[in-house]
């Protein structure tokens, strides 16, 4: 298929349609208004259903209903709206329903602003709503990857019967970049779901619920979820390492921050600094094991995030004290330049005497 120049919000919508998504329920909030706008038009073309709901609460609950009925369904929002959806996301997890939720993060807390941010990392990776659960969280770093991960998100949601969150930011929603779409999925050819509510014809009644009043039964359900999450961790953890082979310092960053960090690393490499990039592509499950292994060789990790420091905690947990972990965080919607990040890298690099000879520099 041909390369197109498209806005991230539209790419998200188009990729969802290509993945066989025929149901979208949403509510306007900047900076992702172009997603519902696109879906309202596109789903009409493919015979799907779009509803502009009365609230984020209503829209996530429509998602629950559509998922119960077996539809490939998506909603999207930005930070304050995602907070409102958390109730429904908790139910999706408890009821083991597949759905895709996209968050184009904006600055917070509260109303914050509409600038790009990564300050919803905790909310996304720790569940977000109440109860003992996880969402699978995908973090694209380019518009092409947004398209690819959107298709992947629907498959993961169905495979594990679990909500999947695509974590972007305001910039990813608004910017245009070249994209090549994969071939469309035929919704009729998707694997049959043997658990949906479609009327008890020639079979016993089906019930989808999350309420299990007997603590022993709920505990068993919780452990069932835990085993599922273990399987996700085992099979679906994804990350990317660039220039890490000879690195004495590694920058850990995801999404938009990772591409800026990539530019910074290209700059400092030109000056001979041995710096690599560790980029989680799944934020939950977090690629803790490869990062831990990396920390056996690289003793200095600079976490760069567009927030006051959230992923840095997962980095610290992963390396188990074997590497020094520092943070360069820019909250509030500020987008530092690659030069800014290069400056931070250099400061750390020379400060730790990593330019000196010896394995792992001055470690």
């Amino acid at each position: 298929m041909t390369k197109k120049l498209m806005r991230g919000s539209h790419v998200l919508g188009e990729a969802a349609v290509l993945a066989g998504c025929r149901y979208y329920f949403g509510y306007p909030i900047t900076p992702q208004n172009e997603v519902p706008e696109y879906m309202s038009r596109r789903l009409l073309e493919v015979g799907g259903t779009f509803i502009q709901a009365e609230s984020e609460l209503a829209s996530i609950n429509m998602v629950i209903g559509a998922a119960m009925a077996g539809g490939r369904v998506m909603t999207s929002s930005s930070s304050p709206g995602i907070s409102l959806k958390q109730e429904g996301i908790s139910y999706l997890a408890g009821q083991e329903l597949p759905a895709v939720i996209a968050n184009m993060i904006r600055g917070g807390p509260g109303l914050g602003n509409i600038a790009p941010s990564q300050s919803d990392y905790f909310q996304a990776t720790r569940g977000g709503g109440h109860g003992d659960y996880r969402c699978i969280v995908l973090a694209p770093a380019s518009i092409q990857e947004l398209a690819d991960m959107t298709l992947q998100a629907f498959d993961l949601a169905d495979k594990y019967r679990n909500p999947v969150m695509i974590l972007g930011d305001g910039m990813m929603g608004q910017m245009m970049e070249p994209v090549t779409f994969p071939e469309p999925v035929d919704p009729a050819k998707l694997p049959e779901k043997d658990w949906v509510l479609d009327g008890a014809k020639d079979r016993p009644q089906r019930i989808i619920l999350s309420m299990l009043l007997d603590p022993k039964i709920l505990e068993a359900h919780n452990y069932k979820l835990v085993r599922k999450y273990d399987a996700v961790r085992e099979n679906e953890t994804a990350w990317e390492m660039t220039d890490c082979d000879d690195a004495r310092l590694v920058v850990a960053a995801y999404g938009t921050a990772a591409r800026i960090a990539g530019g910074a690393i290209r700059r400092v490499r030109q000056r001979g600094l041995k710096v690599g990039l560790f980029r989680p592509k799944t934020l939950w499950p977090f690629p803790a094991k490869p990062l831990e292994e990396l920390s056996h060789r690289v003793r200095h990790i600079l976490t760069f995030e567009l927030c006051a420091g959230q992923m840095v905690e997962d980095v610290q947990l992963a390396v188990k004290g074997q590497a020094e972990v520092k943070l360069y965080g820019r909250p509030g919607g500020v987008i530092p330049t690659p030069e800014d990040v290069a400056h931070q890298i250099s400061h750390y690099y020379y400060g730790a005497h990593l330019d000196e000879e010896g394995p792992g520099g001055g470690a």
Partner: protein
Amino acid sequence: MKQVFARPKSLKPAATHYCPGCGHSIIHRLVAEVIDELGIQERTIGVPPAGCAVLAYNYFDVDMGEAPHGRAVAVATGIKRVLPDRVVFTYQGDGDIAAIGTAESIHAANRGEKITAIFVNNAVYGMTGGQMAPTTVPGLVTTTTPGGRQVNRDGAPLDLTQMLAVAKGAVYLERVAVSDPKHIRQAKKAIKKAFQVQLDGLGFALVEVLSACPTNWKMDSITAWQWVKDSMTKDFPLGVIKDETGYDAGPETEAGDDR
């Protein structure tokens, strides 16, 4: 021998958890009878609420999908939009549909979602232990209105069904009670009509059923049901609130109905 009375097919042979004197069992039965009579058991999906009827899936023998508190009509919307040829109903209490779920109710009605809502109004939060509901009538003592509901402090009871009447997509709204056999028969007719509206694809239909909660009202059953008739109907008068179905009144209408 001719069988003259049996459990509806759409009701499971289970003893309910409801308190003595509670109206839910009657209303469950009416809904199940209607599902049987319309022959739609195999294509009906119910959405129970958070509230006393949260366990309704243990009683109805149709597919059931649990909704968060207040969101039943939104969940039902999602189901119905994916499976437009199925019959989808919600079963909600007053707190569910008229307090926390007010926005969802009004907008589902306004969009004319082709679903059937059964709204059980017993003027109190039952499952949580008898707190004030949006429909608690003035003077009624609840655990959060000691001394009785005072309009100037707690607000007046909210007539959600009347509110829904202004929603263009709501085609049939009726308030009934299950306080005695005659009213129970009338309630069943209304419920059946509300399902027929959906089968005919006309739009949103809701039946509000006045019911008793002797436990939380701290009354005996007889007093409670008398109170439904004598007191609740003052704030919530029975009758058709909106009917744009275009159905003939038909022979079933009882002349001289005193509702």
